[in-house]
């Protein structure tokens, strides 16, 4: 199994799509498909995320790996529908700016790990986000930002939510939070993810707490 995992990870980080797909096909011929999500994709994307955080891999490798995994899942799921892992309605947004790479990586990783997500879009203002929360009623919101002022807008959103008596778990991520380790608390988030893997872990924890 370890040999397979190493090979699959190597195919992902080297962006060898054909090799990654043949490894996946070989695996599901011999194993249950659900096992591929739980034991291979979740673990490998976690390993890739951690290596990026330690500076051993680049952002492009994280992005392309999660993209390949999302394509594999898309191929897998219509044939093998499985219940999503999230018992709580969860959304994701890039607040204020149009830098969407972080959101794409996190979305791909979460979807590849079996979570359903509402995509609230990008370049969304606090006011617009509040409207969307009121109409869609997510219980968990993942906010991705790149610019420091956008990170500060999370505080504004939290204040608006409090004013409107709306309880929602907020998980933040993005460069400003990596450069200032305590920023997530200052802006009123419930947690911070250094990478997409942290987002998976935090969602699993929040889902577990709910059940």
């Amino acid at each position, binding site marked *: 199994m370890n040999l397979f995992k190493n090979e699959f990870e190597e195919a992902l980080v080297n962006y060898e799509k054909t090799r990654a797909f043949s490894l996946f096909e070989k695996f599901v011929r011999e194993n249950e498909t659900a096992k591929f999500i739980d034991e291979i994709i979740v673990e490998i994307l976690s390993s890739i995320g951690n290596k990026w955080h330690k*500076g051993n*891999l680049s952002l492009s*490798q994280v992005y392309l790996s999660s993209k390949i995994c999302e394509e594999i899942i898309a191929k897998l799921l219509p044939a093998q529908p499985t219940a999503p892992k999230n018992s709580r309605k969860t959304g994701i947004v890039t607040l*204020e700016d149009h830098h969407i790479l972080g959101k794409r990586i996190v979305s791909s990783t979460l979807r590849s790990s079996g979570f359903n997500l509402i995509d609230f879009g990008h*370049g969304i203002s606090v006011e617009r986000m509040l409207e969307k929360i009121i109409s869609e009623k997510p219980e968990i919101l993942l906010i991705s930002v790149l610019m420091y*002022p956008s990170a500060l807008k999370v505080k504004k959103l939290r204040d608006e939510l409090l004013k409107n008596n709306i309880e929602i778990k907020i998980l933040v991520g993005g460069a400003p939070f990596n450069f200032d380790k305590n920023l997530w608390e200052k802006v009123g988030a419930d947690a911070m993810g250094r990478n997409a893997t942290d987002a998976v872990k935090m969602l699993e924890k929040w889902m577990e707490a709910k059940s």
Partner: protein
Amino acid sequence: MTTEMSSMERVMTALDFKEPDRVPLFLLFSMYGAKELGLGIKKYFSDPDNVVKAQIYMKEKYRNDCYYASTYVAVEVEACGGEVIFSENGPPNAGRPIIKHSQDILSFDPPKVKQTKCLLNTLEIIQKLKNHSDSVPIIGTVVSPFSLPVMQMGFDKYLDLMYDDRQLFADLMSKNEAFCVEWANAQLAAGATAIVYFDPVSSPSIIPREMYLKTGFEVARRTIPRINGATATHFASGNSLPIIDDIVKTGTAAIGVSSMEDIGEIKQKCHGKLSIIGNLNGIEMCHWSIEDTQAAVKNIITKGAKGGGLVISDNHGEIPFQVKEETLHAIADAVKKWGHY
């Protein structure tokens, strides 16, 4: 004790790997000038005279060693016909991508500097600063041809292009390189002393070295030698340690380095080959105490100042709007206190 040098002498001596009177300080003020003049950011940038006035004022107020002629990074997208979104407390940001599909690259026309108002504004700023003083380095900026597509087409689509369509990628690089060279040389002709070549995508934080050698490295090797003056390659918070030997080969004179990397280690790899600009954490700086500030400046000086080749600056290439005046004064005080050779 060396006699006090002008900012120009101080910076040039440091970049020549010699020890000036003290370590030079580059507080890279872009939108911060709006705060100093009490203007909204959009209004501030609408008139070159505002920027000139603020640069001259902030140089004296914070004992800065440069005029930073950069307005906002997204100006290059604005020049390409793109939208710029102004906020009340942050850098103007590029709006929706102008290259929506990779095939749009074929019909994309890079801007002509002399026909583009927003770029002419920057040239006017440089000319006026040059007329004001010859003894202060004027820093111009370009976004590298390799990093500009993040704003032109969006990061995800650009990575897809880089990995999946090398022909269209090459077409875009060719167009961007021509624009970058024209834009950098126009700034130098207007009076800029040197050009900061912002190239965050080349950072190993963003792409692996193997990809860099096939892409950003080659682009830099074609572009930098065509720029008629000194350049400093800046990774805008991205790491650079694993590619320092490669960066040297691009012909650049200095690098802007990340606060995530150890300045001592960088110094060891760069000394005599590349000067270092950095690496104060611009995000943490927003809430630093005086003690935090002193410790951060002292650390850089202790590890990186010996033998010259160091300019103290932030790690991103821009002082955030949220940094307090007291912190900026504390940085200047600390440089004065511990930065003397």
